[in-house]
């Protein structure tokens, strides 16, 4: 079981931007990591954009599971893991990270914040610690901590998109993805590879 990325985003009026991200891309090839990271950010953003405030959802994309929790105040977290990683631990971790983030970063910085203006360095630490879900042994047992909100399961990224939207178009339009990453996406798709995110 593996965790790949943990990001904190802010959503207001259906606009979403990344506040901070942590990544563990050791299992990807050295020359792939740049593109993989861009796609993790891109995917996290799309999911937060398409999911409602106050909801928990898990989007399955090939062998990746993207767990997403958006609070009613617009602060959202996305954890990208593999399919072995226990869902419950994933959501408990997201709860914890958002709480911690709220404590350390004042809310007035969120609307215009980005990775350069916000100082929050805990994400990599959380990722490393929770790589082994049993490290957080108490979390394995705590079930009640998650409130009653049901977790919505989507079978693919395409499933969260709105009617008429196409992932290919979103990739092509994206300004955050580099030319290399876009080609990477196209080639991977053509070869029907499953070893890349998206």
């Amino acid at each position, binding site marked *: 079981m593996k965790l790949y990325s943990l990001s904190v985003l802010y959503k207001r009026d259906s606009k979403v931007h990344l506040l901070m991200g942590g990544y563990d891309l050791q*299992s990807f090839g050295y020359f792939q990591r740049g593109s993989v990271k861009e796609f993790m950010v891109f995917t996290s953003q799309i999911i937060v954009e398409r999911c409602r405030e106050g909801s928990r959802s898990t989007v399955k994309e090939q062998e990746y599971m993207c767990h997403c929790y958006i609070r009613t105040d617009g602060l959202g977290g996305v954890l990208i893991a593999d399919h072995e990683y226990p869902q419950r631990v994933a959501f408990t971790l997201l709860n914890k990270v958002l709480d911690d983030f709220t404590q350390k970063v004042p809310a007035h910085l969120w609307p215009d914040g980005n990775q350069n203006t916000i100082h929050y360095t805990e994400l990599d630490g959380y990722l490393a610690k929770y790589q082994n879900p049993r490290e957080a042994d108490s979390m394995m047992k705590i079930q009640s901590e998650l409130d009653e909100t049901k977790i919505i399961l989507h079978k693919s990224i395409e499933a969260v998109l709105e009617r008429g939207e196409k992932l290919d178009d979103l990739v092509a339009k994206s300004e955050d993805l580099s030319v290399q*990453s876009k080609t990477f996406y196209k*080639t991977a798709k053509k070869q029907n590879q499953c070893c890349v995110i998206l």
Partner: protein
Amino acid sequence: MAEELAHRILSDLSTAFQRHPNIDEVGFICCPTCQHNRSPVVVENNKLGIETWCLELIFPYAHDKVLRARSRDDSGRKIKVSRSARSLLEATRAVLLVQADCLTAWNIRKELVEAEDLKCIQDLKFAALVLTKHPKSSETFAHRRWLLKQVVQKTSSTSPQPHPVAPASHTNGLVAGDQASGGATAAQPLSAQRGTKAELPCDEKLLEAELAVCQRSAERYPSNYYAWTHRAWVVENVARCHYKILMRELSDTRHWISRHISDHSGLQYRQFLITQLGTHFRSADALQDEFLPLLTAEFELLTDLITAFPGHEALWYHRRYVFQQWETVLSVYKCPKSDNSASSRNLTHLHQGRSDIPAEFSRDCEDGKPHHATVVQGNKKAKVDPAYTEHLTLQTELEFCRNVMATCQDGWQVRLAGSYQHWLQQRILGRDNNPL
């Protein structure tokens, strides 16, 4: 023109390998057209990157070279092509970095090894590099096996023939297992029979390197069956199923399977280790005192993982294997005549259990905790009636299933528990109908 460019890129590749002898990974850089006027071969941080646009140039060029070295005339005889070893090495290298399953290219490299134009160790290093890009290339693993055989043959011809059972001694500077890996080994062999095999029948460094290659490949590609079967081959043919190595591998892969709970191939490797370990215990005493605790530990590991991470089929199938092993062991030293009153009581008890399985078992095992440990380890000296042990194990297993089915909310996990329970019951019934 294209050929000229391909030739130049190939020599860029060679220069890269010369300048950076410690390249430890290879990858492609996604780049469909040549955008800069610079070489598509990049080395960064000891990682070799090849831009994708040049692959369609260099691959046909190098592949053609490889095939021409293999061409035959009309009567099927090889045409002598005067090619330097160097150019063949370059061409096969380029082909294999792109397409690792090109057997012809690997075979040419085998010939180069035989002609002593290429050292085994060098080619092992190259094949390991290929595996970083193509982690489940079966031909690459096959080539490694061939290379390892060459190395092992060479070492065994200079030292007395190592044999899996006879003590092996080494004169040519090989590391003895005791010094190098004493700490990692879980337990010292107890019986005198296994004590004679203290020394490893192989080069420790070679073995470590090979196991590390398997580990990396398994890490890079999930459920990498090729990597795990290769690992089993290495343990069998390089380490010759040495007791110490088997035990160490068993304890080393414990962590790995706890982190890859749906990986059948990793668990299958563990089954290989356990089966091989079983052959090390010859006497009934050794089986009971050493092998059964090992199976007990495996049951406990599985109980722990299945409970913590519900819904993974691989773990349940591994459990079936452990149970089967357990049964086999008990059948080995099950004594036909037991005049002991306690044991005959247990036997009747067992028979009652068989006639009405669910009711009987639920009465006997109420707290639902695994009993394997107490049964075996608690009675190390006193002989336990195997029939009784077997009965208890069955009970524990059925109780475990019932517990899971009663408490787990994961529907898939409940189905898996149900099918395991069904399997157990079928086995008991089958045994009753066909007495041995």
